[in-house]
């Protein structure tokens, strides 16, 4: 049974679909919804996503049918047809994705028929019904991928045996999706594998169109993008594997070894890459150690974020920073099966470094449940996790203050810094995260 949520940490299905289209170069959304839906979604993405503003076809310039009471009564199909036709004239793009809002889904516009009329004329228009009440950003991401896979990706292309598709890294929900994916692409390329990442500013719609050529899909999440990858297999015969986001040296080495094995990459080549990357990390971490050890910067970790980040960050601070993960709050809306998958992932962390894991969407209840855990600790000094460090979203700053803990925001929403090409994936991403959390500890000097 779903319930209310204090200050949601994601967008609705429409928002999730919209930001995914916006992240695809030369793709444009045609939003069939009330006047403010796309603007509110854009605001949530821009302000919560580290100030990711308009790329080319989006922001407050997003085409939108802006239906009002009249269409509620008479239906909005005519208005949609008119809007699509005009958008094809006005907006210069390769892919036009009609996505819908609560209003149009409730009044039951037959948007598929409207769109099919344009498809019959050979126009690159696709449609996904993404009414906000159907779920959150993840749901919207899956709906949009369903539309892309069935309506845009070419069928029956010859396979390329070292090409992979990447799913499960959601634009904006992962505020660092661009940096993470670009680093992933670089690392995979170093071991001889080409990756379709789709949603960075350096991807194009051609790679999307030809994505059925891939030999494998990699889903970097136990929950996000699982449906997309499964559907991709069903429709285009591309199998998939699931991995966690590899943040830092230990996780990245494990990840690359698995991929190298699957693709029969020579161990000489792999080891050369691993050695270079590891060297990059430690040549910078080494001279940070004076500060780190002199100041005893080991911390108890409280990690709050979506399933991808809560695990990947906990794992990094456990495996590489040598901190003690104490508590991890997963803020996604997940069903039982998804929760089990996430728990199984956390169970791979050795017990002495494994945090308590809760599933909680609501900011105040995260706090309540953490404090309830602390009560149980029965610590005679009243400070069972001192010193602590909270790695969460901007909404968790007050919690960190209550714990007298350090704080760094890496999860949506991030409003107190801008995000461009930063990312936490790989060795270099791990170095960045180490740099940032240690910087937070000295920021008042």
């Amino acid at each position, binding site marked *: 049974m779903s*319930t209310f949520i204090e*200050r*949601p940490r994601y967008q609705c299905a429409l928002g999730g679909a919209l930001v995914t289209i916006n992240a695809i170069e030369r793709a444009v959304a045609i939003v069939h919804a009330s006047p*403010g839906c796309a603007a509110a979604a854009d605001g949530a993405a821009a302000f919560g996503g580290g100030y990711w503003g308009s790329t080319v076809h989006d922001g407050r310039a997003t085409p939108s049918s802006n239906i009002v009471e009249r269409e509620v009564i008479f239906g909005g199909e005519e208005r949609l047809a008119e809007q699509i036709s005009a958008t094809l004239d006005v907006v210069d793009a390769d892919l036009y994705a009609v996505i819908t809002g609560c209003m149009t889904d409730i*009044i039951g516009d037959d948007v598929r028929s409207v769109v099919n009329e344009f498809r019959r004329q050979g126009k690159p228009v696709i449609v996904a019904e993404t009414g906000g009440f159907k779920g959150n950003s993840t749901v919207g991401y899956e709906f949009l991928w369903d539309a892309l896979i069935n309506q845009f990706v070419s069928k029956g292309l010859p396979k390329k045996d070292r090409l992979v598709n990447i799913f499960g890294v959601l634009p904006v929900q992962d505020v660092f999706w661009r940096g993470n994916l670009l680093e992933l692409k670089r690392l995979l390329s170093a071991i001889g594998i080409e990756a379709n990442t789709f949603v960075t500013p350096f991807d194009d719609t051609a790679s999307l169109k030809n994505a059925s050529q891939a030999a494998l899909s990699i889903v970097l999440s136990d929950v996000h993008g699982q449906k997309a990858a499964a559907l991709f297999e069903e429709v285009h015969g591309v199998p998939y594997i699931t991995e966690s986001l590899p943040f830092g040296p230990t996780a990245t080495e494990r990840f690359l070894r698995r991929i190298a094995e699957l693709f029969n990459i020579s161990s000489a080549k792999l080891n050369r890459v691993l050695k270079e990357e590891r060297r990059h990390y430690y040549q910078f971490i080494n001279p940070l150690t004076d500060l780190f050890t002199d100041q005893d910067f080991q911390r108890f970790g409280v990690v709050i974020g979506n399933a991808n980040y809560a695990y990947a960050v906990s794992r990094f601070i456990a495996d590489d920073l040598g901190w003690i993960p104490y508590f991890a709050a997963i803020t996604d809306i997940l069903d039982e099966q998804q929760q089990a998958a996430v728990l199984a992932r956390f169970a791979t962390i050795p017990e002495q470094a494994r945090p308590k894991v809760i599933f909680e969407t609501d900011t105040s209840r995260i706090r309540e449940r953490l404090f309830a855990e602390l009560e149980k600790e029965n610590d005679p000094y009243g400070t069972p996790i001192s010193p602590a460090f909270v790695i969460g979203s901007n*909404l968790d700053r007050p919690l960190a203050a209550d714990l007298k803990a350090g704080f760094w925001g890496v999860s949506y929403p991030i409003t107190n810094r801008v995000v461009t090409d930063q990312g936490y994936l790989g060795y270099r991403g791990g170095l960045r995260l180490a740099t940032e959390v240690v910087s937070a500890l000295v920021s008042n000097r």
Partner: protein
Amino acid sequence: MAINLNLSEAPIREARLGAITGYNGTLKDLVSRSGCGATINNCERSFSQTSSCSSGCAQTLLANIVDAAIVNHAPIGCAGDTIYHNIANHYGRFYRGQDNRNIQLINTNIEESDTVFGGAEKLRAGILEAWRRFKPKAIFVSTSCASGIIGDDIKGVISDLGEEVPIPVIPVSCEGFRSKVWASGFDAAFHAVLTGIVKPPRRSQPNLVNMVNFRGSAREYITRLFGRLGLEPRFILPFASVEELETISEAAVTATVCTTLGSYIGTALEEQYGVPYVKTIPPHGVAGIEAWLRGIAAAVGKQGEVEELIAEERAATVDDLAEIRRRLDGKTAVLGMGPSYAQSYLGVLEELGITVLHAASWHYDQRYDYGEQPPAILRAAGREEDVTFSVGDQQLFEIGNKLSRVKPDLYFSRHPGSSVWGAKLGITAVPVIDEYTAFGHRGLVNFGYRIIDALTNRHFVTKLAERVTLPYTTWWFEQDPYSFLEQEVI
């Protein structure tokens, strides 16, 4: 037409104020055809871009009432823009020396099953939790397209709460699909405050001014100006407390920095409680501040003091203004703003020596709640020179096309997400986000120097424009900017 506080919700601006979102012509034409009992017809578009939502406008005012909470009865996406409201909250609290705290908002997470079975139970749970969690002095229940269409009985849920929630719980009717004029959401918020919070006066507070604004950055400046008239401002709604809002009926006068914002509450307080509402042009620039201060002074009988104050402020800034005018002479601009600012800034830019080549207004209220045309547009239209004028709910494809044709030196905008499209065309964009930009004589000087600074080094936008792609086809840039606006039926 008088404001009716017995209605459960404020009628939308299209119905109440003859507001339009589609027009293309000239300033003088618009004014003459919407004055003296005449009404101009709205024109629809066959291509449109996203606009904004009433619920965002309602929540931007209500979310920052310091000891109130919001229960947003909506799918989670409708609470997406609370991130922005929370930024405003963090800034506002920081500058007022308050601790870092999040806004108090719960979203009821309307899902598919609720659209079938109704969301009343979730709403009830959300209100109870907001009370338990925040212990607020009032709870506002904001509505959404989804809650509106499924027809949840919000008043019924609230009245069934009874003693369980012993504070005012007030519905705010701000469904996005009801109105294309997002400012209808301001009225929804004010209606909720007027009907659920404000109490009849127990005494009169002859020094108190209700100062209707958004963020209140000019608090010190206004406090000083008002102090000279023996008055004290109370800034509403953001950062006011519920207790402060209860007594706005006791004030001597209501003034506003934005006449789009202030019309409903100002008129209602005047009609209901006899608190005079200052109906002058907004206080931007010399003419604005002088008319506005005189309006306030007239309401409280301080005509003598105000002339002395005005003379001083004028004397303190006259040299700077002359210098600014000299340096900005011959510069050209296009402006795109909400109606109050679009109208007011026609005057402001003239005072700075800038020629406006085109003005776009995000909507246009043909009359305010007290029955008259907006004073600033009358003033602007009274000048000898006419100017092309368009009305559109931030339709940026029209603005982009217009900018590419007239190639002004400057694009002045208000509202997030608009200035960027000037910048991408290589046009220096000066957004007016702070409502007190160009406020008063001194604010005008600051604004003038800000514009000079923006023009002094244009590298950011000129280099950007050479390297970015615009969203539109070549075909579009060859069309008339208003070719998707339907022809007027006269």
